[in-house]
C-alpha cells in the first residue's frame, strides 16, 4: 500500500485500517458505511491503562506499608500507657487501613484486566475485519475498476456492514468491565 495509512492508538488497528483501505475506497464509491471510521470506535491505548494500573498498585503497596507503621505506632503508644479509648479508635482506623488496602489492590488488578481485555478486543477485531476485507477483495477490486453490478456492490456493502457489526460487538463487551468496576467507584473509608 503506497498511500499514507490512518494512524490509531492501537497498532493492530493501524494495521487493520491499512488492510481495509481498498474496501474503504470501494465503500466511498458506493456511498456505504466507512469501515475504517467504524474502527475508530474501538481504538484504545491499553499501555496507558496499564501504566495507570501500575501507579494504583504502587499506591496500594504504600497503603499497606503505612498500615504497618500505624500498627507499630499504636503498639508504642499502648506500651507508653495510652488510654483504652485510644485503642478503640486505633482498632477502627486499622480496620479502615485494611479495607483501603484491599480496595486499592482490587482496583489495580481490575485495571490490569481492563488493559488486557481492551488489547484482546482490538487485536481480535483487527483480525476479524481484515478477514472480512480479504474475503470481499474480488468485489472490491471490481468496484474500484468501475463495475457497479448489483452482485459486487452488494458484497462490498455487506462486508462494510459486517465490519461495523464486528466493531459494535467488541465495544459492547466494555459494558461488562464497567459493571465490574462500579463497586470500586465509591470510597470504602469515609470521614466519620
Amino acid at each position, binding site marked *: 500500500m503506497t498511500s499514507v495509512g490512518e494512524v490509531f492508538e492501537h497498532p493492530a488497528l493501524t494495521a487493520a485500517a491499512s488492510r481495509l483501505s481498498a474496501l474503504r475506497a470501494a465503500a466511498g464509491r458506493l456511498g456505504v458505511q466507512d469501515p475504517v471510521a467504524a474502527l475508530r470506535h474501538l481504538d484504545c491505548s491499553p499501555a496507558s*491503562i496499564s501504566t495507570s494500573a501500575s501507579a494504583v498498585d504502587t499506591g496500594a503497596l504504600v497503603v499497606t506499608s503505612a498500615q504497618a507503621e500505624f500498627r507499630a505506632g499504636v503498639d508504642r503508644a499502648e*506500651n507508653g500507657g495510652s488510654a483504652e479509648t485510644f485503642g478503640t479508635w486505633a482498632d477502627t482506623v486499622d480496620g479502615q487501613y485494611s479495607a483501603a488496602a484491599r480496595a486499592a489492590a482490587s482496583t489495580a488488578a481490575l485495571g490490569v484486566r481492563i488493559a488486557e481485555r481492551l488489547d484482546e478486543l482490538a487485536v481480535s477485531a483487527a483480525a476479524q475485519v481484515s478477514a472480512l476485507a480479504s474475503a470481499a477483495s474480488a468485489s472490491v477490486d471490481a468496484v474500484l475498476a468501475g463495475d457497479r453490478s448489483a452482485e459486487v456492490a452488494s458484497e462490498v456493502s455487506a462486508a462494510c456492514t459486517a465490519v461495523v457489526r464486528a466493531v459494535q460487538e467488541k465495544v459492547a463487551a466494555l459494558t461488562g468491565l*464497567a459493571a465490574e468496576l462500579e463497586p470500586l467507584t465509591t470510597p470504602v473509608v469515609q470521614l466519620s
Partner: protein
Amino acid sequence: MPEGRGSRIRSANPELRPGAPKRPDGLRAGADLLDQAAAADDKAAGRFAEARVDSTPFGISPQARELAARWSAALAAREAEARVLGDATSDLAGRLRMAAESTRSTGFRGRLAVAP
C-alpha cells in the same frame, strides 16, 4: 495477614493493657510513628492522583467513555480513602502528643479519664 491488629484492649494480662502507667516518651515515640504512617498515606494519595488518565486510552464509544468515567471515579475513591486515613492517623498522633504533654506538665502517672 490476620484481620485486625490484635488490640491489647481486651487482653487478660494487665501488663499488656493500655492504661498502664503513662510514659510520655513512649507516647511521643508512638506519635512519631503515626506521623510517618500519615506521611505514607499522603504519598499513597499522590500515587493514586498520578494514576489519572483522560478518557482517550479507553476509546471514543459511549461504552468506553463510561468505562473511563468509572476508572476515574475509582481512582478518586482510592485517593479520598488515603487522605481520610492520613487525617485520622494525624489526629491520633496529635492526641498522643497532648496526652504526653499533659503527663509531663502535671506529673500525672495514672490513667487519664479521657482519651487517649
